[in-house]
C-alpha cells in the first residue's frame, strides 16, 4: 500500500536526533513488549503480517507513535483478532494496572516456553525457500522496477517504481511478502539486489557518485 511507512525520499522531518548513550529500552514496558512479541504469541503472525498490521495504523498515529507503540498496536491487533484475549478482559485489566501499576503479576515458570523463545532468538526463522524455477534475471542485467501500486502489503518502495537499475547480486529465493502478509501463501520467488543511480531515481539534482541498492523480488521487476 502507498502508506506513510514508505518514507524513502520524503522531505520535512528535520534533523536526525541522536541520543548519547542510548539505552536498549527506554522504559520497562518497551522491554516487556519486546519479549511478548518474541515468545509464543509470535506463532500468531509471520514477519510480513507483523509489518502489515503496523502499516495499517492511521498515518498520523503512525508518525506520532513511538517505535514500540507500533508494536503494541500490532500485538493487540492479532491477540484480539485471533481471539486469544477478549476486548472486555483486556480493557478491564488495563484499567486495573492504570489504577495500580504495582498490582502483582502472575509468575509462571515454563522451561519449554523459555527454551522455544531462546531457540528462536539463537536460530532465527529464515524465510529463504528453495524454488525450482530458473531465475529470470542474472547479475549484470538491466531491469525496470515495475510501476505498480498494490493496495496490500508490498516491499517494493515507491521511490524506485518505474526506475531502471542493474542487478548486482542474486540472493536466492524467499517467501513473497505480498501474499504471505495476507494469508495467501508463501509463493517464494528469487530476490535480487538492484543498484540504482541516484540521478535515475531523483533526477539531475541528485549528487554525483551516490547510488541506492534495493533488494527486490522477481515479480517486482521487468525487462526494460
Amino acid at each position, binding site marked *: 500500500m502507498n502508506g506513510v511507512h514508505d518514507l*524513502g525520499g520524503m522531505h520535512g522531518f528535520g534533523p536526525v536526533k541522536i541520543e548519547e548513550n542510548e539505552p536498549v529500552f527506554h522504559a520497562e514496558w518497551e522491554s*516487556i513488549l519486546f519479549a511478548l512479541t518474541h515468545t*509464543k*504469541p509470535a506463532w500468531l503472525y509471520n514477519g510480513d503480517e507483523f509489518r502489515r498490521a503496523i502499516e495499517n495504523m492511521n498515518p498520523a498515529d503512525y508518525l506520532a507513535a513511538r517505535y514500540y507503540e507500533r508494536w503494541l498496536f500490532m500485538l493487540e491487533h492479532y491477540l484480539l483478532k485471533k481471539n486469544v*484475549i477478549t476486548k472486555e478482559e483486556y480493557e478491564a485489566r488495563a484499567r486495573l494496572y492504570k489504577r495500580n501499576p504495582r498490582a502483582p503479576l502472575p509468575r509462571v515458570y515454563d522451561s519449554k516456553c523459555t527454551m522455544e523463545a531462546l531457540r528462536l532468538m539463537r536460530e532465527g526463522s529464515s524465510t529463504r525457500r528453495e524454488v525450482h524455477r530458473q531465475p529470470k534475471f542474472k547479475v549484470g542485467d538491466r531491469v525496470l522496477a515495475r510501476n505498480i501500486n498494490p493496495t496490500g502489503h508490498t516491499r517494493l518502495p515507491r521511490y524506485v517504481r518505474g526506475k531502471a537499475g542493474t542487478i548486482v547480486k542474486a*540472493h536466492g529465493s524467499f517467501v513473497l511478502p505480498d501474499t504471505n502478509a495476507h494469508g495467501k501463501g508463501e509463493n517464494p520467488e528469487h530476490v535480487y539486489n538492484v543498484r540504482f543511480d541516484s540521478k535515475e531515481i531523483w533526477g539531475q539534482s541528485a*549528487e554525483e*557518485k551516490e547510488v*541506492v541498492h534495493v533488494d527486490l523480488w522477481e515479480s517486482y521487476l521487468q525487462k526494460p
Partner: protein
Amino acid sequence: MKSTVGGNQTENLHKHEEADLAARVRALESLLLEKRLVSTDAIEKLIASYENDIGPMLGARVVARAWVDPDYKKRLLKNATAACKELGIGGMEGENMVVVENTPTVHNVVVCTLCSCYPWPVLGLPPNWYKSPQYRSKMVIEPRKALREDFHLEIGREKEVQVWDSSAEIRYLVLPERPKGTEHMTETQLASIITRESMIGVGLPTRKKKSRSRKRKR
C-alpha cells in the same frame, strides 16, 4: 515546518501517555501469563539477552577478525551468515546477512526505509534514530548531505556513497576500513575501537578506546 513528529522518546505529539502504554503492556503480560502463552523466565531471559549479551560488541568482533585475518574476510564477504556463525554469532533478524566493504573508493551506509530492519545478531536492537522518519526518509535521497549534516561525517569526493535499503530479508553490516596507525593493535584492541555507527555506515572507528561518541554540534 516544525519537526515534532517521529518516534523519539522526548517528542510531544504522543497519542498515549506513558502510563497508559505501561498499563496496556502490563495487562497483556498478565493475560498471556495466565493463559500460559508466555513465561516469566522467557520474558526475563529475552530482555537480559538483548540488554547485555547481543549488541555491537559482537559485530565489532566480526570486523576485527576480518581486519586481522584475510581468509576470514574473504569468507565474510562471500557468506556473512556462515562467517558470523564461525564465531558463534547469529540468530533472529540475521538469518541472511551480507557484509559490504568500505574501500578507498566506496563508502557504504545501511537504512530501512519501509520499517526498521537491522542485523540484530551483530548490532543488537537498533537505536531510536535509526528507526526515525528523519533517518529513513533522507538517507536514500541525500546520503552524502545527511552524513555530513546529521552525523558530521564528511565523505570525500573520491568515494561513491552506496546506500543499502534493507527492503527484503537480507540484513546488512558495513565492514569499515581499518584506520591507519592501528597496525600494532591486537584483535581485541581493534574490536574496542569499532563503533556501532561505523558498522551502520554513519560513523568511523574511533581512534581512542572507549570514546564512542564523537563531538556533535548542539
